[in-house]
């Protein structure tokens, strides 16, 4: 029982990080039909911005801010303007290929520019254990959960309670109508890219102390984002959150109780099962066929 609680809490913490990545992924999909195969690398990258800033002598908190700012600049603005915009008129496929190439580019660039070795990354809080009901829970998991929940709540407030957020939702749901109503659609699309950049930067800060910062981190993280987004529902922010959490918990439980060798396989099997039985995802809407 105690070990189950431990597994659940650490699974919840990983799942919350997956959820952040998956939410960003679905936001890009909803507003610009971008299937971003470089999403995992986008999470890998800010950790190296932060490490570089710390090598220059910045304290951790400042380095984190610099990392988020650089992430907004590159993963948000530059990605949107240089990679996505020229490609949109060609349809979905070239953009998919381009983001695959981008993921390769980022991986190699980080490997050459920084290091091919895994780098230790400072944790948000000192690592001590809390004892609850006989279970040992690390403060790190708790801190990760707290930050992730705060981020998701802030995002939800932004999307649902502000004028800006509602404009963004309108853009996602029906860009033509949104334009007719006077919403600056292009700017709204850009904002979702910037929000995605912030989300991946936060995810990067949360996950790097656990996995260490390594240029190949994006491979598993990107896959987790896809799986979470599809399980939950490709076109729903809440779906992505649910999918991320299910995935994190499942990942930990299956590694502990079923087979650690096939740890990576269970999410994929669930993915295939969801596509078979409920292709719109657990919480998704069925999208009309575009003719």
């Amino acid at each position, binding site marked *: 029982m105690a070990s189950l609680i431990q597994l659940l809490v650490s699974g919840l913490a990983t799942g919350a990080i997956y959820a952040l990545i998956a939410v960003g992924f679905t936001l890009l999909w909803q507003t610009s039909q971008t*299937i971003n195969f470089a999403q995992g690398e986008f999470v890998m990258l800010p950790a190296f911005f932060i490490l570089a800033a710390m090598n220059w002598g910045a304290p951790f908190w400042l380095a984190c801010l610099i990392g988020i700012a650089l992430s907004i600049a590159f993963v948000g603005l530059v990605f949107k303007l240089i*990679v996505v915009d*020229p*490609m949109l008129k*060609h349809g*979905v*496929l*070239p*953009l*998919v*290929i*381009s983001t*695959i*190439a*981008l993921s*390769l*580019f980022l991986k*190699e*660039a980080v490997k*050459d520019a920084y290091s091919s070795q895994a780098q230790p990354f400072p944790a948000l809080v000192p690592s001590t254990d809390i004892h609850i009901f006989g279970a040992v829970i690390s403060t790190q998991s708790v801190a990760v959960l707290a930050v992730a929940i705060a981020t998701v709540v802030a995002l939800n407030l932004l999307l649902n309670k502000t004028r800006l957020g509602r404009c963004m939702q309108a853009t996602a749901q029906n860009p033509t109508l949104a334009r007719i109503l006077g919403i600056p659609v292009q700017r709204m699309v850009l904002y979702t890219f910037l929000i995605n950049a912030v989300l991946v930067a936060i995810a990067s800060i949360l996950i790097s102390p656990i996995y260490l910062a390594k240029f190949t981190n994006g*491979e598993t993280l990107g*896959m987790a984002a*896809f*799986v979470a987004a*599809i399980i939950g529902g490709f076109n729903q922010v809440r779906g992505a959150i649910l999918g991320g959490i299910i995935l994190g918990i499942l990942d930990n439980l299956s590694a502990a109780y079923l087979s650690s*060798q*096939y740890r*990576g*396989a269970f999410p*994929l*099997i669930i*993915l*295939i099962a969801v*596509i*078979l039985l409920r*292709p719109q995802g657990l919480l998704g809407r069925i*999208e009309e*066929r575009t*003719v």
Partner: protein
Amino acid sequence: MNRAGAIAIGIAAVVAIAAPFFLKPFGIFLISMWAVLTIAAIGLNLTLGYAGQISMAQGAFVGIGAYTLALLTQAGVPYPLAFVAAGLLCFAIGWLLGYPALRVQHHYLAFVTLAFTTLVFLFLRNEEWLTNGIYGVNGIMRPTFFGWSTGKAIDFYFFCVGSLTVLSLATWWMLRSPWGRAFVALRENPIRALSLGLDTRRYTLMAFAIGSSLGGLSGALFASLVQFIEPASFGLQRSFDLLLMVIVGGSGYFMGPFVGALISVLLPEWMRITEGYYLIVYAALIMAMMAFCPYGVLGMVERALKAAAVRRDPPTPALQSEAAGS
């Protein structure tokens, strides 16, 4: 097929036959690899270029084919039989995989195949009783036909090019058949194809399964060529590489995979001068190509030729050109 195309293919054939006599062993290995990967890329081109579905599983099918050949020949099955089995197994798996994924449209095949590739990799790595895990399979045989042994590099090259010729002619013939016309219809206008009574889902599935079996046959050759296979050769990276080959060559062009595979095999060698930065440059080139010309090299060539033809012979009303000609 126009005359320029026929001449180009003739020259390419002469080069393909003559090349190994002028090359060092590593060069022969590279052009053999080109022939092998071209077969896999032709298969992927059916899925991507004709049926318009993104598959990330071609690398996994190459892996399944390679392991099928390696394990069957080591169990004493004759080479031709093992070779055919590699193709058939991949056809069957492709059908089973595509069936659920193509039930729903959009990009689900991309995700299902992505998951499938990772699952195959995990299977190859973990099931040591069958695949020997990360240690891989060694000493894979090369075939002998009627006393002609393909053990030497140059002989095996001719076997690879022979297989490529036979398989690409078979694909060419298939694309000219009513089936193939249906594939082209899928690409050009799936909704119209559907309204004309084509069972688009069945044809898409068929294109995917045939493409997968070509991946398997390519894998069988791959195993004999490198004679040592391990799970890491058939991970996502291989699938991405094959996908990029098809795109770079020009997806939907019959000759696209030939060009794409050639670029993908030769470019790393030419770019030795850039040392470690090869992949960065390669990735940047692909992104630039997608932004400016997503139709691949052949698409670019075709546009350039068309533009040149228009310049040489500006379109004039039919009567005037008649008069000018007489």
